[in-house]
């Protein structure tokens, strides 16, 4: 999947196996180096380097005035980041796990997302809220939520999620440089797999989707961890003669209609795949807008292959909850392919 990557900024740097965790770490390091107004804080992000080690080594390298452990309070973390942004800083803050971002919901929704609008553009909120999210890693309760629908429903936020190390680097750099607040969702189950990569790298713009696998018969729309699942389904489908196109949405808000429309008009069939519950989930938005914009090109209703409408299950049951390649192909089988 590295075909899309531009040449490394420093020619001659050899590609090495790089994880998303390492790519994110490098992105933070480079941003801290280049821009003195960037600061990084959150729970355990200092000497420990964060529970996923994304901030590993940064406190030692940049000192406690650039990277530090905050008190354990999510509203406090986002609320103080808002004040810092008002005072000209670019804070990158970490919510330790998806479901622990909920105490900060009010600060994000009522202030972070709205400050520019309230002040007619006078005050920007260049804040990045990094949230390790979603499941598949055997996390205990409250450690595997997919909260994207809450954030994407909020005007004023940009919500993105990388699925590869190269995108993770490039998108985080762009998120930090953005004058809009960015909810940066990091799919936990993708932290450790590696990609041959020479950093720094710049991939496609942060707010665009990307066709990661071309196909003629059906478009799978996936993001974060489900990109991998969708690619597995494409492989499996291929063995049965089904030519599957896979799109990594990358940006959940804004939604890259052009890339998706183009694909759907070509294949005339689409399914969206996510881990979050189905009911009023992000897939509902995707299905609705794909249908609204492409109804006469569609041969079948847009499908949603998602987690069940249950609280995220316990670790030993999560395999039954998460969408799988088989489940995706079974869903595609419900279409009348002769139509």
């Amino acid at each position, binding site marked *: 999947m590295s075909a899309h990557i531009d040449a490394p900024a420093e020619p001659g740097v050899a590609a090495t196996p790089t994880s998303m965790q390492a790519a994110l770490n490098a992105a933070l390091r480079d941003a801290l180096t280049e821009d003195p107004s960037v*600061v990084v804080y959150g729970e355990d992000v*200092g000497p420990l380097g964060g529970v996923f080690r994304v901030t590993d080594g940064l406190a030692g390298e940049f000192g*406690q*005035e650039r990277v*530090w*452990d*905050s*008190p354990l*309070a999510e*509203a*406090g973390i*986002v*609320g*103080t*980041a*808002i*004040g*810092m*942004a*008002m*005072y*000209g*800083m670019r*804070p990158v803050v970490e919510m330790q796990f998806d479901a622990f971002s909920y*105490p900060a919901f*009010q*600060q994000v929704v*009522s*202030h972070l997302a*709205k*400050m*520019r*609008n*309230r*002040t*007619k*553009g*006078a*005050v*920007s909120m260049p804040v990045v809220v990094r949230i390790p999210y979603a499941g598949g890693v055997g996390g205990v309760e409250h450690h595997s939520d997919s909260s994207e629908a809450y954030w994407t429903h909020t*005007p*004023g936020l*940009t919500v993105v999620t990388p699925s590869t190390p190269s995108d993770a680097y490039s998108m985080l750099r762009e998120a930090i440089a*953005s*004058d*809009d607040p960015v909810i940066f969702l990091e799919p936990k189950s993708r932290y450790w797999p590696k990609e041959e990569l020479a950093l720094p790298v710049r991939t496609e713009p942060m*707010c665009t989707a990307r066709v990661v696998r071309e196909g003629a018969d059906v478009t799978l729309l996936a993001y974060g961890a489900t990109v991998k699942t969708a690619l597995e389904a494409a492989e499996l489908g291929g063995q049965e003669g089904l030519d599957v196109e896979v799109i990594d949405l990358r940006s959940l808000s*804004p*939604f890259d*209609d*052009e890339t998706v429309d183009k694909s759907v008009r070509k294949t005339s069939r689409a399914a969206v795949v996510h881990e979050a519950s189905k009911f009023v989930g992000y897939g509902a938005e995707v299905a609705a807008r794909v249908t609204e914009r492409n109804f006469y090109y569609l041969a079948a209703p847009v499908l949603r292959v998602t987690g069940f409408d249950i609280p995220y299950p316990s670790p030993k049951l999560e395999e039954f909850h998460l969408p799988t390649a088989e489940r995706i192909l079974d869903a595609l089988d419900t279409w009348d392919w002769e139509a």
Partner: protein
Amino acid sequence: MSVDFRRGDLPTLPDSAPVTLIDDEGHRAADARDGGFDFPGADELKSLYRKMVVARRFDVQVTTLTRQGRMATYPSALGQEACEIGATAALRAADWLFPTYRDTIALLTRGIDPVDIFPSFRGDWHCGYDPSAHRTAPQATPLATQALHAVGAATAAKLKHDDVATLAFLGDGASSEGETHEAFNFAAVWQAPTVFMLQNNQFAISVPLAKQSHARMLADKAVGYGMPGYRVDGNDVAAVYAVVKSALGRARAGGGPTLVEGLTYRIEAHTNSDDPSRYRDDADVATWKTRDPIERLEKYLLSTGLLGEDDRRSIAAEAEDLAARTRDAVSAETTLDPLEMFDHVYAAERPEMRRQRDFLAAELARSDEATGANA
């Protein structure tokens, strides 16, 4: 930030008798309750008096306009002028203020034109002034949220080595919110140059303080966070000014945050849509009216010969002038551009936003055409 952990003298419980510099009768308080704070100079007191009189006239005017239906809503601060003005007057121009919906008159002391304050209460836009230009955040409506912003801005100022402090207003009801706790705690741990001005005006809409907090007093809460707390007579502008000024100075000098509880009373209703007769005694209101912050300072200034007839005339003229300007501004027809709704949502342009803007533009053009055709 670990560099800032200080384990020096931790504060002890504050004195329950409020710091008072000028008492109810307008006399300089002679006992030890002044807590060793600097008594403001004659010019400072006269300036505070002028600001309070002008602010009261403004507040009364806006309440009237609201009753006439020319403003959507207005939470009055009548009776709380000493806290509002005393605390903000202690700020320097470079400091930042983080106000709530209640603290409109405090905005006047930041040089914000009433014309730019109204849009949010009239329903034109959420905030009508440029926060950066006046170093004053938009008035926060969700309770206690602004306290964290004040801590963040103060910490940023400290990281940039700016000689700047921040002031956050809070209400007694807001003190129960989790974010108040987080703000106090962050401020103390980070030794942020922040002063929390907690206006204990006795009620949170209808709920009296006794149903809000079981603490001996709200100023006590500071101690648990490791910051000093003070209770001041919130109707004594000299005391509020002196205590907040000293706290801001300490903050700028690296001494960390302070909680100041101002003991005061909300004379008006919570907002124009509230009926205070359902939850409080007229007798209480009458008693508090006898403790009026403006009359108190006026008595002092008159008895000490600091306030002359000329001063009173010029202050009255300034107040009337502001009231007239306020009436005119509120009554003036405003033209709002509905398309501007889309202009300030994102810094980066979004195709979907452009589509929705175009949709509304087309709709507006059609209705213009229709009304044009009918005319």
